[in-house]
């Protein structure tokens, strides 16, 4: 996924243990940083279904991210949805330099980003099956 944006330092490796997730906010973007067996991943922390905020404890520590709002399940490694299939979290680029974790935050305003990203599903008809998306 290539998108315009710049890297921000969000955490250090000491802040996030294996199996842990942290929620940070940069420029009104809520960002979920997860550590899967030492591998760092970051996602825009809003569920593709109803834009529910995904919390640190939504990550089960191994493989799944489960949205607390309607229990949509995502693969923590790729962001692809497992249940239901055919949807995805928005994966953000991550860069680890030394001890610092940088995340590439999109440079568009959040409101615009939401329309662009979550509108995609509406066109593909994923969302309509499951109710109205805000």
């Amino acid at each position, binding site marked *: 996924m290539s998108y315009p944006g710049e890297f921000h330092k969000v955490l250090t490796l*000491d802040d996030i*243990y*294996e*199996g*842990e997730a942290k929620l940070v906010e940069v420029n009104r973007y809520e960002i979920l940083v997860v550590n899967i067996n030492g591998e760092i991943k970051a996602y825009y922390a809003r569920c593709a279904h109803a834009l529910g905020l995904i919390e640190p404890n939504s990550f089960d*520590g191994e493989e799944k991210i489960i949205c607390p709002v309607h229990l949509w399940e995502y693969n923590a490694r790729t962001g692809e949805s497992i249940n239901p299939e055919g949807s995805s979290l928005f994966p953000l680029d991550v860069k680890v330099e030394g001890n610092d974790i940088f995340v590439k935050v999109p440079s568009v305003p959040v409101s615009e980003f939401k329309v662009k990203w979550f509108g995609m599903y509406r066109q593909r008809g994923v969302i309509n099956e499951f109710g109205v998306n805000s």
Partner: protein
Amino acid sequence: MTRLEDLEWYRRYKQMFGAFKSGVEGDRFFRDYEYRGYKRVWSTWPMLEKKLGRKKPSEYQIVTYALSYWADPRSPTYIYDKGPFELGTEHITQKWYKHFRDNSPFIKPLFERGEWHDYEDPYKLTYWTYNSMADDNETFLDKIYEEIVNTKYDWNLSEEVLELYKNVYDPLRYVFHIMQMESMYLASMAPTSSITNVFIFMGMDHMRRVQRIAQRVKMLDIIYPSLGFGKEARKIFEESPLFQLTREVLEKMLATYDVGESLVAFNLAVKFVLDELTLQHLTQQFSKMGDEMIRHIHMSFYNDTLRHRHQAQESVQNANNSINIM
């Protein structure tokens, strides 16, 4: 930092109430004002960190790892100013645990190296997960019992089945209750909390059997009041030649206080054989005589048994592996 004695209000307070009557230490204000360090508290998190490195512990590990008391100066429970078990230094409890657990030949080698903590229940059962599982099992049995009542199942039982219920099935309450007692003894004496949990849940499973047998016998008693169901179970258990060998082995087992010994006796011998006898062979006997319902009930019990065996096997293997590495 301002000294307490230099403060105006404190001087006045001293004049009025005569602080320091019993020296600085006894003065409430002094104690709160001049912080002299926290009392160390018992936390298993540093231990978990030592074990896992920089990994978030799972819920099972958080609520299970190394929570039991042990009378060892290196243990996290020793730092209480009240000594091991918070009972001073010369309490009978500590002697009991030292003698029957810490120095038990089976327990000792791993105990001294703190390696019992490495045992993890293969099912990762916590209080929460065990209860949700047990709830499902109970629902299953409730429905079967309801079915027995609704279909008037007991009306059609043959006389020999009723005899079997009365003379063999009813006294099994005592057998399973003794197993429950033994599980709980092992739970209270286990070298580490992950093993304690296994035995607590095992005890609960045995309690469930006691209750279900009693319920079943009462159902029969309601339908056949003249046959005296439930009245003579104890007498049969204490006197019937059928049960005497079982009773002897069970009572010897109950009086075996050494943990290693009772752990092996209970899990690898007594429980194994009795579960096999009661839940498999006795069930077949009932089936032959035309009672099919009991198979479903005992299947639920036997599922527990399979889990118990797996857990016990893991713990013993864990011990053996560690001993062989030495």
